[in-house]
């Protein structure tokens, strides 16, 4: 059975979340408008390839790790990427479900699954944080926001592990408190990269599709 929580926790899980979500939506809308305020370059020469196929390929590489040099050479990093982002997506979904339909995520099997997903996500966040601190090439490109974002995500997913059973009010408070913080902070931080992703892949796919670079020919390009 879902835990009876205090007014404060209920406020953090409900009203505060909605307010933070509205704030995030407002900032993202402004951000998209801001991106679109910059003039997009366009190709004047007739296409050699196909825009649509280029764009589809550019989006499709998200699920085709063998197509990108980095993920092909380091498949474990793709696994990390996938598990980490699944963890984040599930945690976001949980913040929307748990306050209003707690029973939907209350069965032991679901709880265990959520905890495993969150725990793996948190471990990967920690491992990424350590790699960023230890690897000289990663350290050279890192700013405080990079470390902070990873640390906070690790903490949030960790809190998710504790909050998933809905038995600990402090865990719920921490998980939803961090969620509210992220909803406000993320649109300004590096984590907002996902709002750019559809745009940048669209333009990349269109550009390379126009010139016949994307999709690449189905021939071996590497050893």
């Amino acid at each position, binding site marked *: 059975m879902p835990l009876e929580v205090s007014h404060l926790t209920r406020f953090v899980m409900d009203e505060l979340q909605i307010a933070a979500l509205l704030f995030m939506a407002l900032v993202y809308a402004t951000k998209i408008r801001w991106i679109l305020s910059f003039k997009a370059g366009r190709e004047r020469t007739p296409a050699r390839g196909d825009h649509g196929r280029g764009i589809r390929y550019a989006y499709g590489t998200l699920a085709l790790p063998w197509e990108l040099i*980095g993920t092909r050479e380091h498949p474990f990093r793709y696994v990390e990427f996938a598990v980490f982002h699944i963890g984040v997506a599930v945690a976001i979904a949980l913040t929307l479900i748990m306050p209003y339909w707690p029973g939907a995520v209350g069965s032991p099997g679901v709880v265990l699954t959520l905890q495993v997903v969150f725990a793996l996500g948190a471990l990967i966040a920690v491992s990424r944080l350590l790699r960023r601190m230890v690897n000289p090439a990663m350290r050279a490109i890192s700013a405080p926001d990079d470390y902070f974002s990873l640390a906070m995500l690790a903490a949030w997913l960790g809190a998710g592990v504790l909050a998933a059973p809905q038995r600990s009010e402090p865990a719920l408070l921490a998980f939803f408190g961090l969620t509210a913080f992220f909803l406000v902070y993320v649109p*300004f931080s590096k984590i907002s990269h996902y709002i750019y992703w559809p745009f940048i892949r669209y333009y990349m796919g269109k550009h390379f599709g126009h010139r016949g670079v994307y999709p690449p*020919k189905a021939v071996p390009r590497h050893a």
Partner: protein
Amino acid sequence: MLSTEISPKAQAVVEAFKKKLTRQAVLSLATCVNCGMCNESCHYYVATGDPKMTPAYKAGKVRKLFKYHVDWLGRVAPGWVGAKTLQTDDDLADLKDVVYGSCSMCRRCTVACPFGGDTALIMRLARGLLTAEGLAPEGVLTVSKDQWEIGNQMGVSQEDYLETIDWLQDELRSEVGDPQAAIPIDKPGANVLFLVNPREVKYAPLSLLAAAKIFYAAGEDWTMPSVGWDNTNFGLFSGDDKLGAHMGKLAYNQARKLAVKKVVISECGHGFRATKWEAPNWAAEDLPFPMESLLETMVEYVNSGRIHLDPTANPRPVTYHDPCNLSRSAGITEEPRFLLKRACLDFREMTPNRQESYCCTGGGGAMSMAEYAPRRLKVGSIKANQIKTTGAASVATACHNCVDGLSDLIKHYQINIPVRNVCEYVADAVVLHPAKVVEPLIPALKGRRILVIEDDADTVTYLTTLLGDHGFETLGARTAAQGLTLARDRQPDLITLDINMPGRSGAEVFAALRSDPVLSRIPVCVVTGAIDFRELMYLRNVPAPDGYLQKPIDANLLLLTVQKILHVRHREEVPETAGAPA
């Protein structure tokens, strides 16, 4: 900003930066999460292991500026996101070293990036800002100036250009055994207008001769323009869109004037990309004629049966290097393979290839930046190893920058195999009727005096014997002083000059020759085993050499180059015989 000590140039760069941002540039600047997935895509980083050579670090120099002045959080808390502005001339020098000296704009990191952040776009943006303030490398500025003022990157005068084409026409006739074979100039209504790289006119005529032979074999109705013939475009490298538009317009206007059916661009990676794809955007022109690469034209000739290839003409193993500007920015990857597999008996794939090919190290205008040559050679170890692994006896490529870049690597890493354009293999394999007849020497050039300045006794003997056997009078000098004395006393018609000599170097001798009012009229062909001579070609503190050849010396290429230089000079001395070929 804490300090008010901002240099005028830094201020100008910052102001211009904010105005030049396009949507694609903003996305490339804003999206990066510093994930490091691009690190190992860059030959600069892979070869050195230097954390400051990763694409994210290098593009990060520009990203810091973006975050400081444009990004929302960066403007409020710059330190939190690593934002930083440019304040001093030292900051600008540091930026110059990164965007010009540490990136060949090859775009390998772009296709490796999970987002598609275009580091080359960012680098070009920054290069443009520096160029506008006169802060580009000297070689880039020199070449850009010549493109603005003379209309081609090697500063070739129209007279020299036409003389060279005239000489090539003679060579073509000799090669194909047909006195009617022609390289037409400004022929109205021709099917093909052929644009070339000035390197082909000034230093490397074999590829132009090969293209002419292929057009001849295909029975093509083609022409070259008398102006606007340079397909290269330093606007792409310097980030100067106005220069990019200017160079494009020179060619486009000539194509319109001659009412040609299509424009064919010779094997030059950046030249093709700039002329076909970028310059119409810079010039804001929608063009009424199609443009294609010579590679595409040759494929069409083979497919339609207009030319037939005999691969036994190229029996030794050949590999192919994908020029970045063709494979990653123009989608041309299969055409050269189609041709090489039909023109050569043993084609060997180099890996990685196509969109994943490593840069030759000569991209982004690197060949004109002598100050970064040591770094370029060091990071070229990746490409050198790729070439070695194929076991090929020669490297084919479809770009003149790549020919030069790879030639330097091959020399530096002692691989000792030649690099040639694809069209040269195709021309060798083209079946012609009747069989070719080669004239050894244009009669008017017989007896011309050539001074060989070279410290190695065996090389002096080889060169003087080779040239002597072909009807030239020869002189040999083994020191700089002896060479200069002989040049003054005997007034040769041509000097072949080694660069690496003990004591006074060939570069110093070259400068002395060019600075002397009497000796400066003598054409000089650099024959060298070093790569330092590129400085003479691009910096051009004194007029550039008339020719260059790399060691080990290819006897046929030496004779061809010597004849070309003497022929052009001979026509200049006897103007009544000069003129554009029909």
